[in-house]
């Protein structure tokens, strides 16, 4: 079960896929500090990395001069993941369903589906300073493995 004391972790990186090791390390740090079990940790890492990759690639167009900030917050009742980029954002409803016919054999486009299948809530909004923010919440209603 996660610790009830609120804990926050954050990292800001240039928009390069080479930076993903830092995100994996941030997850490992948060998982250990929050007491998150192995199974939950796997899906948290996957959700955060998929959304960070989307922010680097699609939000910021792989422009290393643009930044991505990732955050993890746990408080015993939920785990909140936040990914901010400097892009124009997108409508979650417009993301093509990768399980539909012609999309099924495409090599990409499954990240949002994976995130939505695991997280309890996923929302995208505009940041007051520009860019977009994806917020993902996993409720912890029961003790986690």
């Amino acid at each position, binding site marked *: 079960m996660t610790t009830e004391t609120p804990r926050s972790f954050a990292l800001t990186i240039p928009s390069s*896929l*080479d930076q*993903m090791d830092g995100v994996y390390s941030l997850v490992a740090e948060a998982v250990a500090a929050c007491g998150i079990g192995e199974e939950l940790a*796997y899906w948290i*890492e*996957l959700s955060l*990395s*998929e959304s960070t*990759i989307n922010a680097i690639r699609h939000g910021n167009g792989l422009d290393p001069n643009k930044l991505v900030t990732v955050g993890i917050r746990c408080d015993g009742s939920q785990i909140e993941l936040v990914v901010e980029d400097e892009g124009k954002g997108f409508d979650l409803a417009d993301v093509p369903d*990768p*399980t539909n016919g012609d999309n*099924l*054999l*495409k*090599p*990409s486009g*499954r*990240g949002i*589906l*994976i995130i939505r*299948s695991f997280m309890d809530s996923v929302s995208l909004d505009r940041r007051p300073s520009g860019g977009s923010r994806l917020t993902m919440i996993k409720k912890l209603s029961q003790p986690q493995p």
Partner: protein
Amino acid sequence: MSLTILTRRLDDVVILDLSGRVTIGEGSVQLRDHIRQLIAGGETKFLLNLADVDYLDSSGLGQLVSAFTTIRGQGGSLKLLNLTARLQDLLQITKLLTVFETFNSETEALKSFR
């Protein structure tokens, strides 16, 4: 832990024992290049043993799909062996279980190529 690929052969089937992480960047590219090299060498029957893959992201999934379509396009086949529960979930969520033939027994998998 990065990706390790061990290559075995039984009859005309190439078995790749994967272990570690298949993620965007290194692991995914390593898998792509390894399979491309084998295809270029004339291999057509592939069995990927995923028992020791402890993390695979959507890029890794995409790599499996790309390899599958490339090999199928050349008249060959790519099948999956020993999916972990997490990989089973990922393939279920993405409906890729409807694409790949999967096996829990290497013997049964090898029989299916005959």
